[in-house]
């Protein structure tokens, strides 16, 4: 096990983040308690809230810490009083939050079709909330959020942005985007699993999903996950400092893709014409299922994924690729390679060598089968 290229599924915590987590794990107070143990914990929470706020350019008060991106997405959409519109390539937690959501089409690169968004909004009476992700988890394709905002505003609609895959990888500014709500997840940007945030513009008050104590300004009950939040804060700080470095992964990723294309001419790089995250590549290999590719790579000690991790227990065709107009065969033959903070050229070499050998053998196997027949 030495080449991990599945950072969009989860990324290991950085050493500095682990330190922050351990430090918080050894503080034993409840932030709601008024004694000094409680106050110390509250201070830890305040610092982390500040760091996360800085990462996406908001005031600390607009952050609601949650148990992760899924909870943040559900809270943003679930109880909205009005129509909810989602793009067809959203994460399952957005698609699943509302059974009655209206689905907006995307083009061949997985980018929202603004005309269809406009059409769908025009058909809605009353309040509407549009949920469009900043970056896709499977292809890395970025959505034209500014255009989405412009169209949404024409119809007086609110906009929620699932920035789980984008935050910490590219510059994300809540204010510049002008969105009303945004979801974040710590473990996608070098923080621990089990913590995320819903960011809410001033004056907006989504119904709490969890009820009980008055934590998070009565917007999310439950004793705060102090260690998780401390780790989230540390990860946000480090990710922000390393955005330029992360942008440099584009070169590594592009190099990876061009080597695959040179060696295996029928390879398909999905969403290649879209603006993408620096670290993500969605690679289709005609004639070989993603499951088979991932298994062979796994045997060679290389970890990548077939689609998003949440649904990878069951290997269904990717709904993202289907929304991009790919047929079932194509949607079932794409793997995702995602680089992270500890990836280097050797990881890419290892992946490319293994994958190219496998892809070339695919032809040989098919020839062998033909000659036997």
């Amino acid at each position, binding site marked *: 096990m030495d080449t991990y290229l599945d950072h969009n*599924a989860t990324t290991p915590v950085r050493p500095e983040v682990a330190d922050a987590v*351990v430090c918080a794990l050894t503080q034993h107070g409840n932030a*709601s308690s008024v*004694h000094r143990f409680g106050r110390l914990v509250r201070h830890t929470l305040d610092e982390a809230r500040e760091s996360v706020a800085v990462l996406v350019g908001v005031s600390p008060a607009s952050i609601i810490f949650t148990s992760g991106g899924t909870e943040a997405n559900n809270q943003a959409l679930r109880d909205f009083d009005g129509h909810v519109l989602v793009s067809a390539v959203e994460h399952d937690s957005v698609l699943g939050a509302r059974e009655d959501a209206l689905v907006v089409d995307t083009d061949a690169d997985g980018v929202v079709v603004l005309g269809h968004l406009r059409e769908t909004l025009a058909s809605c009476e009353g309040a509407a909330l549009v949920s469009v992700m900043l970056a896709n988890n499977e292809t890395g394709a970025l959505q034209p959020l500014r255009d989405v905002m412009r169209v949404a505003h024409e119809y007086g609609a609110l906009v929620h942005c699932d920035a789980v895959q984008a935050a910490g990888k590219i510059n994300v500014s809540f204010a510049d985007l002008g969105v009303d709500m945004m979801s974040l*997840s710590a473990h996608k940007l070098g923080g621990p699993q089990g913590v995320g945030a819903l960011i809410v513009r001033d004056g907006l008050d989504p119904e709490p999903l969890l009820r009980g104590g008055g934590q998070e300004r009565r917007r999310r009950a439950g004793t*705060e996950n102090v*260690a*998780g939040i401390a780790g989230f804060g540390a990860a946000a700080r480090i990710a922000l400092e390393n955005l330029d470095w992360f942008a440099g992964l584009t070169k590594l990723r592009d190099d990876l893709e061009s080597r695959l294309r040179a060696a295996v001419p029928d390879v398909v790089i999905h969403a290649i014409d879209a603006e993408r995250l620096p670290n993500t590549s969605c690679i289709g290999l005609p004639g070989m299922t993603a499951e088979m590719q991932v298994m062979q790579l796994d045997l060679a000690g290389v970890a990548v994924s077939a689609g998003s991790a949440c649904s990878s227990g069951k290997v269904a065709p990717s709904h993202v690729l289907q929304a991009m107009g790919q047929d079932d065969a194509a949607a079932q033959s794409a793997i995702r390679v995602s680089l992270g903070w500890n990836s280097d050229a050797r990881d890419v070499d290892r992946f490319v060598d293994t994958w190219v050998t496998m892809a070339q053998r695919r032809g040989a196997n098919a020839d062998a089968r033909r000659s036997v027949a």
Partner: protein
Amino acid sequence: MSPAPTAIYLDHQATTPVDPRVLDVMLPWFSETFGNAHSEQHAWGRQAADAVDVAREQVAALIGATAREIVFTSGATESNNLAIKGAVRFAMRHGRGNHIVTVSTEHKCVLESCAAMADEGAEMTIVGVGPDGLVDPELVAAAITDHTVLVSVMAANNEIGVIQPLAELGALCRARGVLLHTDAAQAAGKVPLDVEAMQIDLLSISGHKMYAPKGIGALYTRRRPRARLLAEMSGGGQERGNRSGTLPVPMVVALGEASVVAVSEMSAEGTRLAGLRTRMLDRLRVDHGDMFVNGAMDRRVPGNLNVGFPGVDAEALMTALESVAISTGSACTSASVEPSYVLRALGLDDADAGASIRIGFGRFTTETEVDIAADMIAAAVGTQRSDSSVRAAE
């Protein structure tokens, strides 16, 4: 910020420190052996998934359940929300009733979850408790109607530690075909719980009340007869569709290890804590013979004490006791200064409720700490009383 405080921590019902053994087991899962437990197609994901499986068995063993019945959550608040709203929403959607029975001394998140369901059209009956804090099963039985879906009664109270008669409640709920949910945040790992013997259908666990970190919990959901829920969080369909979201592997591993430690040490530790409690009680009584105890002493988790000193202002007492961490109510509501609704439910008036403190002993509390803290509490009560008698004389 000042360095680590040196004070005696006697607030173990608010939160417990992470046991060093738990910390050791969870740490490698942040970095060395990280992985998404749902990425079962590669080795990193599989080792994470295997660790989750082991933890699931460990948590199940704590309460006599099977691993498949454990749903990991972000904590007891989420577990209680999921159990109550999930079960009632499922029943309402399928026309199988809409009535909830709960108890006046439940944790806020239970009462608020019930209230949220009332907003969605459910009916709710809140049963009171006796002066000892215990609920009378006959009153619960009498509250059950043909429309009742769920009875929610906590295992042990967070403020006064009293243990509710779960086995009796379980038997009567099963006989009436009603689900029994119990918020066991304060009981799990402290006193024996057996979902089979007690016929419990849904049971909430909190990690940070049993020496695992904050931010992890579990909900036991019975498979036979099946307790059905509508999920609160939709998405990837993790936890058999009951709770979507990437599992926090280190936290899950921690809850598993905390369960193992609790099972092996529960009995001896219970005896030790009960001894510390008696020690505290005896010492405080020497100076303050009029001290009263809130809640039944004979049916109580061993680490909890809740006592009042007539005429004393408990808030002021806490402020005076800078070196002893105790509390005046549950932590979730202690930012507000209203008298405890739990103590009011026992029949205490505002003055007596406002004169009461909760002292919570834990795994790392020593006899010496109890002796020092008892002296400090007794002295602080004495100081406040002499100050007020001086003021009265003036």
